[in-house]
């Protein structure tokens, strides 16, 4: 009996191997492309999976990387900056008082399910968020437009269709970054029919007007998108297929690219940039910085309630060395709480240069001639704005030791870390921020206004003049005047020094040298419509 089974097994094995020989000639290899540079498959590998594919219900960048291919926004960001350009709306007008926006939509656009894109669809989407009053599901709507229908602080009052191709937004008060907010991926327009059809499961079946049609999602593995043959922008997209793949480890992801298993990756370790540069089959892409990594002081806690102490520590940190050693040159030293890519950046500010004598003098004046002991909280995980929090903390620790300030490095798991910071438990901490909509408000108000204490103002910095100016800027629709206000705010913040801004990092991506038409966008999300690969 036993023998029969073994013989049967051997026969099956031999057969299957023989059959393999016959069928393995099937083409399963490289990304093909045709003569005009179009076609083919692009495999984009990244470090984490999307959470949901309904852009309105998520806040994480990994989700938007996928949804931005499928669904589109009324207005869009320019290819390489956060300047607003037409999207599904080909033009728009703002009323004099800044409270009414009228959008003229592209005609003849269809969702992937064949239903028409029109003013009603836009109104349906906005009402879905606006009337839900559901801050937990539509978190970005709440944070960018301050509230839902009927709420006192809400920016939007009403969204209505004027005719089939015209939509009008009425606001309760002018909001300067209104268009920039609309360009964000979470406010992309989905097919109303699909939302109704899938209900709770819409998060797994996105249907939009975008260049690629959603095909399949294997969680924690791949998202497959196929060319939208009826895309409204003629001649686009150029690729036949996009596969978005998860490979968690940065080095392993680069290995997969070198081997040719994937075509384009994000999250290249700064230490491995040279490996890409020296490989003629690869090219490096640098994302323009839209982030800030910083050292924050809790200004409510002694001794950081004293401005001179904060300034003294600002003079003691050797930023250039930190950028050189721990960002390996993939960042620029920061002097303001927002990156220079954003309108309103104050370049005339003179940074606190490394000056130990000045630092010691200021400490003496503040009443700490011999320095002090303090906990320094360091982030446990690499973030785009801080690839190695622990090492940077050690560098800061040794810088501080030179002026007699003994810092003890404290760290804990990431979720716990954020939680405790929000409670104001850390006296001195490292953190950062990646911008959402490329507007100064999204840095200065979100991170340093007194309204943001308890959420993202971890320094608990409170300055009435800053507050007044920031509120004024929020409703100022004259771009030049608004930028002047932000410049002024940066001056005050620079003098108050609630933070030591450390660096604006430039996230590194790598791809095959045959990739063309790919521009990493500062927001972290970009369309693959123009991309080609041979």
């Amino acid at each position, binding site marked *: 009996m036993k023998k029969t089974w073994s013989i049967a097994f051997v026969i099956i094995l031999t057969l299957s191997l023989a059959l393999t020989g016959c*069928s*393995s000639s*099937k083409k399963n290899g490289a990304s093909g492309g045709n003569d005009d540079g179009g076609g083919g498959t692009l495999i984009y*590998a990244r470090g984490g999976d999307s959470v949901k594919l309904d852009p309105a219900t998520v806040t994480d960048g990994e989700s938007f990387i996928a949804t931005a291919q499928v669904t589109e926004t009324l207005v869009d960001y320019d290819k390489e900056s956060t300047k607003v350009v037409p999207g599904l709306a080909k033009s728009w007008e703002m009323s004099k008082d800044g409270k009414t926006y009228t959008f003229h939509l592209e005609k003849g656009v269809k969702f992937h399910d064949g239903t028409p894109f029109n003013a009603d669809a836009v109104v349906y989407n906005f009402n879905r968020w606006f009337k839900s009053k559901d801050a*937990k599901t539509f978190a970005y709507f709440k944070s960018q437009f301050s509230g839902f229908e009927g709420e006192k602080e809400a920016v939007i009052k009403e969204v209505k269709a004027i005719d089939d191709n015209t939509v009008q937004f009425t606001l309760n008060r002018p909001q300067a970054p209104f268009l920039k907010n609309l360009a964000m991926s979470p406010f992309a327009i989905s097919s109303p029919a699909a939302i109704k059809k899938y209900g709770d499961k819409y998060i797994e079946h996105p249907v939009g007007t975008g260049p690629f049609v959603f095909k399949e999602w294997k969680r*924690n593995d791949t998202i497959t998108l196929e060319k939208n043959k009826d895309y409204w922008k003629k001649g686009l997209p150029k690729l036949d297929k996009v596969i978005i793949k998860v490979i968690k480890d940065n080095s392993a992801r680069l290995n997969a690219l070198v081997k040719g298993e994937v075509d384009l990756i994000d999250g290249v370790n700064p230490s491995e940039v040279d490996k890409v540069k020296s490989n003629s089959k690869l090219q490096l892409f640098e994302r323009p910085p839209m982030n800030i990594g910083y050292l924050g002081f809790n200004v409510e806690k002694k001794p950081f309630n004293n401005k001179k102490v904060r300034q003294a520590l600002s003079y003691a940190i050797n930023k250039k060395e930190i950028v050189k050693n721990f960002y390996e040159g993939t960042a620029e030293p920061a002097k303001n709480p927002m990156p220079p890519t954003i309108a309103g950046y104050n370049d005339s500010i003179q940074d606190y240069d490394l000056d130990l004598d000045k630092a010691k003098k200021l400490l003496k004046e503040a009443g700490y001639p011999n320095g002090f002991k303090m906990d320094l909280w360091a982030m446990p995980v690499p973030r785009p704005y801080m690839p190695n929090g622990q090492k940077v903390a050690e560098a800061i620790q040794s810088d501080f030791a030179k002026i007699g300030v003994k810092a003890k490095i404290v760290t804990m798991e990431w979720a716990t870390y954020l939680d405790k910071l929000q409670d104001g438990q850390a006296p001195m901490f490292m953190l950062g921020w990646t911008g959402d909509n490329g507007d100064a408000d999204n840095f200065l108000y979100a991170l340093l206004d007194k309204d943001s204490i308890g959420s993202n103002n971890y320094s608990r910095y409170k300055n009435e003049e800053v507050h007044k100016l920031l509120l004024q800027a929020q409703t100022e629709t004259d771009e030049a005047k608004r930028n002047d206000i932000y410049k002024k705010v940066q001056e005050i913040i620079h003098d108050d020094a609630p933070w030591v801004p450390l660096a604006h990092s430039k996230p590194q991506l790598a791809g095959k040298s045959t990739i063309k038409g790919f521009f990493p966008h500062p927001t972290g999300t970009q369309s693959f419509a123009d991309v080609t690969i041979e």
Partner: protein
Amino acid sequence: MLTYTIRRLVTLIPVLFGMILIVFSLIHAIPGNPAKVILGQQATKEAVAALSKDLGLDKPIHIQFIDYIKQLLHGDLGESIRTKAPISEEIWPYLAATIELSIVAMIIAIVIGVNAGIISAWFQNSWFDYIAMLLALIGVSMPIFWLGLMEQYTFAIHWDLLPTTGRDNIRDPVEAITHLYLLDTLLQGRFDQFIEVIKHLILPGFALGTIPMAIIARITRSSMLEVMRSDYIRTARAKGLGSFWVVYKHSLKNALIPVITVIGLQTGLLLGGAILTETIFGWPGIGSYIYEAIQNRDYPVIQSGILVIASIFVLINLVVDLLYAAIDPRIKYR
């Protein structure tokens, strides 16, 4: 035998209950609000409060625990906080990926480990013995992530023999039926894909199998040495039996009991402990599923994920105990 099995299965209930209690208390003891993690740094206070309420996190902890147990008794593993999908549906693809990888890793570990142990014992103090045991020592102490990256570099990039990442060719993906890709490809008659899946299994299989392999080799060797010094082996040799038969038939059978214990324990450990291998090789397995859940404070996934792994672990141990009786007729369960 049957009554023993049933008795063992019944005693599983308090074991699993205790485990659920410990896991539940531990994850609720760590600070970090899942609502905050889900909604991100941008979230407003109202949103966090609303989501906490929605998730039942505002209830007292013992009520949350009772709710969870009630749910389990209804055969419901709960729903992921983050993805909103039922865990019982969501978990299988991950579990299948890990099971497939673990089986391959264990086959590699057992075939090489047991044989290396036997030969080392057979030719005790020979150069083979020394080298094999030195390698075993290195194997036990090898950091898996380093080994994995080195394997990738050597076999995938330098020699271009094997793929670096994933379970299948991304450009020609396997259509999942059971999510055990070896089985799925055979069911679909896609032998080209079957070979592709095997190729994808080799490197992570070796990386994952290295530590169990080393442990198995060492245990087999010491167990074999003990048996080979016993009287009946001397008698067997005296009868004029060939060395091969003495070693592989007479000695091995008696030396196997501790080896099987180790194999059982190691298999259980692989299921939950494959996270490093999974990370390096882009393997969508249960280790990374739970790890991600911990990072996101996805309580139901952590609880139910660990519960599933623990249940498999204790079941494997039960099977091992039953195997003893099959191998050694002197062992009887009543």
